[in-house]
């Protein structure tokens, strides 16, 4: 046995596993992927009362050991010790939703039957009580033959007892080592037993809480449900722009201040230029979008934690069916609004392979947060800050329009793909609608911190490196007097070729220059433009002027609109391409994705430009 002891949380989806995991391990979690598959591996450290640390892993939710998705397959393999490179968990912690015993005990019995040291966490017992259920944990313990600890993860109730039970189970694991598997029951037998055990553990039961039914009556209403969903999404997008502004302004001022300080401290020359024009202009212009990304993720995480996300999938199923997909595709696509990478990874919950492939191929069309910097800077520069109705700003409306363009593009692409490259029978839609829950602030904050960290790490690594390389390419060789620095530079010469290609769709040299490094990540386009114009600025004052005002002075409106249209479609993200390759096991589909999305980008940027020019904009 290798050094560290380990244990794993198993249970049905919606048993409150993640909340229990957060409560047991705190914020120090390691999130990675299981090798070979893109199923998220969440690991954290739990300290036993004895002071011994235990590695705790949060396995994907499963309904049984007969897997019907890659998620469930991982859970089965890890628990059975068949996952190469992954230690077999010594102790299994089965998490049950106390209000849903009859269903959750079906899988719990399967886990307990393995005969390994097992502890049952009877979770969300407060919700069960509120629902009018009075449970007897002792009766459950006797029926199951393993320790049962009532817990309320979100209120940290029962955690001490649970950890103590885990310690006793770990001691058992060390002492015996041998498993005592119990006879295998068939599914109907387990289901019957589950019903009986649940009945035995329920002391009294009153009618189900009316709150959930009442909420669903409104939120799942045949006519009101969808308008409510769309209204909610509209509010989210308005909020992303309105609420983030003061924070973004603050960050921008901070970057400007640091830049000033550096200019004052360092002597004029290579190092000072590298820091102010390269690093601060480039990375700084991307970091200022952190507030918007955090706000967007806050809404997505709250929708997931509250149980509304599954309702959104339910409401969207009919429409998704229309383009050959199911409501299940809605959740990955909505996640792609934040970032296509978690979105594409979330497709693993789609059982049907053709549905899944189609969803992966259209996910990059959803407007990810990396496009926000690009959209935001163009909108700020070219769209007036007017209002077009009570509480509706024109800028927010344009942003909403860009999101809609991405969604419509994705739907049309799905329709076409489903009839051509991913042709086949349509799949079904089967999904549990979890009970509503008030999201807990701490869980939201942990999720937000993880997302923000991923973004900052990208800004600090990919964007930092690309920006510096670009700045070097832009700064050398030095221009002769009277010659533009951009024209003289290596980068300027490089972009000549591409400029010829993109010139018909209204793109200038600087854009061509920005598109090359933006292959790494879309938001680099903003950093590149900022770096280019900083280098090209006639004096310090002009360089200090915001990128938005630089752009509005240098670009025509048709060019700006064509640039927006380009970014609705262009698959400019190396990480997305990499994750697509891993998810589809080869280069065929990422190559296809690149080809069809770049073609769309070129065509639609061109159409936008020519139309705008014809209209005399």
């Amino acid at each position, binding site marked *: 046995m290798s050094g560290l002891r380990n244990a794993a949380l198993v249970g049905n989806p919606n048993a409150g596993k993640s909340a229990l995991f957060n409560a047991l391990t705190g914020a120090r979690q390691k999130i990675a992927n299981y090798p070979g598959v893109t199923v998220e591996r969440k690991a954290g450290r739990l300290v036993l009362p004895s002071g011994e640390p235990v590695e705790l892993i949060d396995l994907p939710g499963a*309904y*049984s050991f*007969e897997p*019907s998705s890659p998620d469930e397959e991982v859970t089965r393999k890890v628990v059975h010790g068949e996952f190469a490179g992954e230690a077999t968990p010594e102790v299994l912690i089965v998490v049950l939703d106390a*209000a*849903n015993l*009859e*269903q959750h005990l*079906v899988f719990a019995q399967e886990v307990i039957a393995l005969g390994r040291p097992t502890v049952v966490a009877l979770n969300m017992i407060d919700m069960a009580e509120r*629902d009018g259920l009075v449970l007897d944990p002792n009766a459950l313990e006797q029926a199951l033959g393993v320790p049962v600890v009532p817990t309320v993860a979100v209120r940290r109730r029962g955690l001490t007892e649970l950890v103590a039970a885990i310690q006793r189970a770990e001691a058992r694991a060390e002492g015996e080592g041998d498993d005592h598997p119990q006879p295998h029951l068939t*599914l*109907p037998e387990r*289901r019957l037993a589950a019903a009986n055990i649940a009945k035995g553990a329920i002391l009294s039961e009153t009618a*189900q809480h009316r709150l959930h*039914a009442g909420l*669903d009556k409104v939120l*799942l209403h*045949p*006519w009101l*449900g*969808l308008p409510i969903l769309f209204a909610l999404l509209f509010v989210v997008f308005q909020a992303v722009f309105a609420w983030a502004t003061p924070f973004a302004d603050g960050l921008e001022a901070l970057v400007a201040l640091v830049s000033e300080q550096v200019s004052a401290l360092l002597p004029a020359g290579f190092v000072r230029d590298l820091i102010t024009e390269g690093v601060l202009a480039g990375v700084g212009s991307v970091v200022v979008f952190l507030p918007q990304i955090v706000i967007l993720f806050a809404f997505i995480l709250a929708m997931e934690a509250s149980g509304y996300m*599954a309702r959104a*999938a*339910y*409401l969207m*199923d*009919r429409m998704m*069916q229309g383009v050959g997909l199911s*409501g299940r595709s809605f959740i990955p696509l909505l996640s792609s609004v934040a970032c296509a990478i978690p979105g594409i990874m979330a497709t693993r919950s789609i*059982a*049907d392979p053709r549905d899944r492939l189609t969803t992966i191929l259209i996910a990059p069309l959803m407007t990810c947060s990396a496009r926000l910097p690009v959209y935001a800077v163009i909108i700020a520069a070219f769209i007036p800050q007017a209002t077009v109705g009570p509480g509706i700003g024109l800028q927010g409306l344009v942003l909403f329009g860009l999101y809609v363009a991405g969604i419509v593009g994705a739907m049309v692409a799905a329709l076409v793909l489903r009839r051509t490259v991913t042709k086949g*029978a349509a*799949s*079904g*839609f*089967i*999904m*549990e*609608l979890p009970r509503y829950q008030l999201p807990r602030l701490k869980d939201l904050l942990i999720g937000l911190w993880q997302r923000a960290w991923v973004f900052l790490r990208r800004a600090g690594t990919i964007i930092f490196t690309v920006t510096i390389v670009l700045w070097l390419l832009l700064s050398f060789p030095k221009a002769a007097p009277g010659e533009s620095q951009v024209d003289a530079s290596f980068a300027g010469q490089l972009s000549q070729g591409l400029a010829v290609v993109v010139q018909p769709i209204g793109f200038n040299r600087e854009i061509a220059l920005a598109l090359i490094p933006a292959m790494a990540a879309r938001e680099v386009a903003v950093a590149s433009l900022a770096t280019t114009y900083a280098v090209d600025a006639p004096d310090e004052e002009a360089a200090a002027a915001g990128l938005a005002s630089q752009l509005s002075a240098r670009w025509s409106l048709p060019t700006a609109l064509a640039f927006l249209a380009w970014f609705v479609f262009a698959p400019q993200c190396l990480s997305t391409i990499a994750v697509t390759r891993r998810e589809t096991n080869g280069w065929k589909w990422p190559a296809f994705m690149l080809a069809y999305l770049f073609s769309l980008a070129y065509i639609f940027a061109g159409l936008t430009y020519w139309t705008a020019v014809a209209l005399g904009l």
Partner: protein
Amino acid sequence: MTLEGLERGRRARIVAVDWDRLAPEDAARLRALGLDAGARVAVAHRGVAWGRDPIAVMIGRMTVAVRRSHAAAMEIEPL
């Protein structure tokens, strides 16, 4: 009578499921969720405006969304 035709709010028991009408993956998922012969169910919601698809089925204290085509394969007896 099938689950598809069950009135909203009315309780029923599934007496038989015609698994051959369903895709094998869908059948496995429905069984895992307990939608099988013997289960007591009720229709809580019928889907959005046009087509009224999917439908939300109550089973025990759990709510599961399924397509109408799944419900049509489930023979029920109202309680």
